[in-house]
């Protein structure tokens, strides 16, 4: 239940978050660089171990261990490293290996397309219906405020399918296929958008299912299957974490007219009410790329993510003082909530009382 703030309070709220941000900026330094380089090192060793086990082993134990290690590496690379580096969180280090503009991640989505639709669209127009295409990605109905259509009946199955193919979903999201289907985007433009995605996807497929298996010679099928499993592990994990960030119950959806000319404080409020956190330990946070702190990430997407758990209690305290909700819960609770949303919204909305904001 959120208290309605006066314009004066909204400004004060914004200023408190601004000064929190500045405080964290002033502390940025060696610790953040050590953290991300440590994660990179863990990821590379895990990747090397995974490939080694897959390539030289012949037994099921090394197969399981190898696939798992490779899956772990892909999770770390995509989430804690790729996502955060590509937000420019480490640009201030001037280390070319941590440069957000040139980083390309180990998955099917072309990095420059993601920087555009995610860094700009999603992080600027967060949860605004019609502007933020991340609300259900154009084909899932995750809130009753989205219009229902009969295709939504099968969305529980579509969502499960998306979980296993998540990297392809993230990549294809840049195409705006739904806009073309609805006649809002010419086919020529769809093709322009599709080319970088198809190129990146083809290269990734070649790498995972031709190049590395080829290196393993007789072990090729084993390596290809191991890569498929590693990709699958990463896909399901990323899907679970990301769906918990914006689609649990209680996350607010906005309409464009109510966000017109919103002051910075109101922008902050929208980021908080449009996001949800997941509680967990340090390892869980790193594996989620700190998207377990979706609220803090949306407030300050360019601060090093490893700082989120440190200042999250202060964000929460500010929210409490201003009578604003702060959506957080265990992984299981948030997942259950997301599942319920997907199931309930598969059917046309029942007459429900309007949500209290």
């Amino acid at each position, binding site marked *: 239940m959120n208290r309605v703030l006066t314009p004066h309070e909204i400004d004060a709220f914004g200023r408190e978050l601004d000064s929190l941000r500045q405080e964290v*900026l002033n502390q940025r*330094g060696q610790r953040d*660089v050590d953290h991300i380089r440590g994660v990179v090192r863990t990821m590379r060793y895990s990747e090397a171990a995974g490939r080694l086990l897959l390539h030289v082993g012949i037994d099921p134990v090394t197969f399981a261990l190898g696939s798992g290690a490779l899956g772990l590496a892909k999770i770390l690379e995509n989430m804690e490293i790729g996502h955060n580096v590509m937000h420019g969180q480490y640009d201030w280090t001037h*280390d070319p290996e941590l440069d957000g503009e040139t980083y390309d991640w180990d998955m099917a989505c072309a990095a420059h397309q993601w920087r555009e639709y995610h860094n*700009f669209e999603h992080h600027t127009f967060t949860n605004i219906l019609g502007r933020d295409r991340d609300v259900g990605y154009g084909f899932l109905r995750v809130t009753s405020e989205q219009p229902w259509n009969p295709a939504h009946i099968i969305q529980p199955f579509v969502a499960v399918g998306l979980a296993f193919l998540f990297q392809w979903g993230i990549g294809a999201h840049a195409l705006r296929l739904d806009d073309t289907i609805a006649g809002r985007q010419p086919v020529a433009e769809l093709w322009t958008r599709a080319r970088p995605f198809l190129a990146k996807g083809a*290269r990734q497929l070649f*790498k995972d299912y031709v*190049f590395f298996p080829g290196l393993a010679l007789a072990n090729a099928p084993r390596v290809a299957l191991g890569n498929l499993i590693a990709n699958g592990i990463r896909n399901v994990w990323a899907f679970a974490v990301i769906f918990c960030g914006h689609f649990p119950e209680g996350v607010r959806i906005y309409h464009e007219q109510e966000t017109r000319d919103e002051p910075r404080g109101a922008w902050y409020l929208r980021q908080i009410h449009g996001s949800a956190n997941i509680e967990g330990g340090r390892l869980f946070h790193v594996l989620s790329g700190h998207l377990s702190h979706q609220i803090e990430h949306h407030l300050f997407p360019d601060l090093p993510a490893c700082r989120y758990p440190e200042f999250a209690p202060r964000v929460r305290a500010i929210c409490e003082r201003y009578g604003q909700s702060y959506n957080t819960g265990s992984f299981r609770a948030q997942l259950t909530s997301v599942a319920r949303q997907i199931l309930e919204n598969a059917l046309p909305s029942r007459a429900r009382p309007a949500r209290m904001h």
Partner: protein
Amino acid sequence: MNTIATSAPHVARIASFALRTTQRVSRALLLDRPFRFWVNELAPVASRVELRARVLSVVDVTHDVKTFVLAPRVWPGHLPGQWVPIEIEVDGIRLRRCYSISSPPNDPHVEITVKRVPGGRVSNWMHTRLHAGDFVRLGAPSGDFVLPAATPAKLLLLSGGSGATPLIAILRDLAHRRALEDVTYLHAARSRRDVLFASELARLGALHPGLRVVLHLDDESPRLDATQLWVLVPDLAHRETFLCGPTGMMDAVAPAFVGLEGRLHHERFVVAKPAAAAPGAGALIHLGRSKRSITTTGRGTLLDELEQAGERLEYGCRMGICNTCRCAKRSGVVENVLTGAISNEPDDDIRLCVSIARSDLTLVL
């Protein structure tokens, strides 16, 4: 490599084609990053991406000046008087500064001589934290403060303070080549304990009759200016002069060279950070890539102002969130309108949509 190229040019061509193809394929398959990681992890000095050098030793030159003896993996070679960019990491941030090379080309190692500047982030870090065995990154040596191809018969090597570093390289090179026919080495220092390379200068002076070493100490005699210079070097007009020193010293001696400009070579160490102008003052923005210069009012954000001037720039949120309009600032002062933070460091990344110019700027656009 040369023998291959002359005996069978197609072999070299095929080799270079194979290398380029491998690089392209590894980039396409995103194998270049892991490759660089493992090189860095297992054999840091072997990196081909950047030129690394091991610090062999650190030598105290004076109470606030140290010489760092570096062993780069490969060295493209330098001319005496040139400088080299050196990159170090201070509190997680890579910082790059250019230092004159104080060693001559025949030296097996590369030496840079660094004065500890009060408040200087790089020089202080190097003095306190850089030790033998550490690595630094180097750029390519560069600079045109060098002797002409034919060594002039009569030379004046004139330096003030740490401006002596390129000139000692020139002097050492001349001594090595036994080309010290008629050289005056005039060095201005604050006091006797601030004289750089004092014992070496004394040794060289005793060894080479063609070398005259003159020391000018600020605490013992009047400040070095044009008149003083003529007194110390009466045949100034007949000499090719190489001048390097602090801005104040260079300005003070400048009148002595009126009419002699053609024989004066100088190198300026930029030490002063640009001062911020008052908010709203107009600024001249140099765009490094497009070679355009734009005058702005200094009131709007750089993104707005540059767009008004007809630049088409990439942008996203226009509120300092999405990082799309990030741009490298080579020099100048900008203010972040969200935080009020001032950026006056060279080579800082700024977001155009939340930055306003507080001085003339050079941007990589």
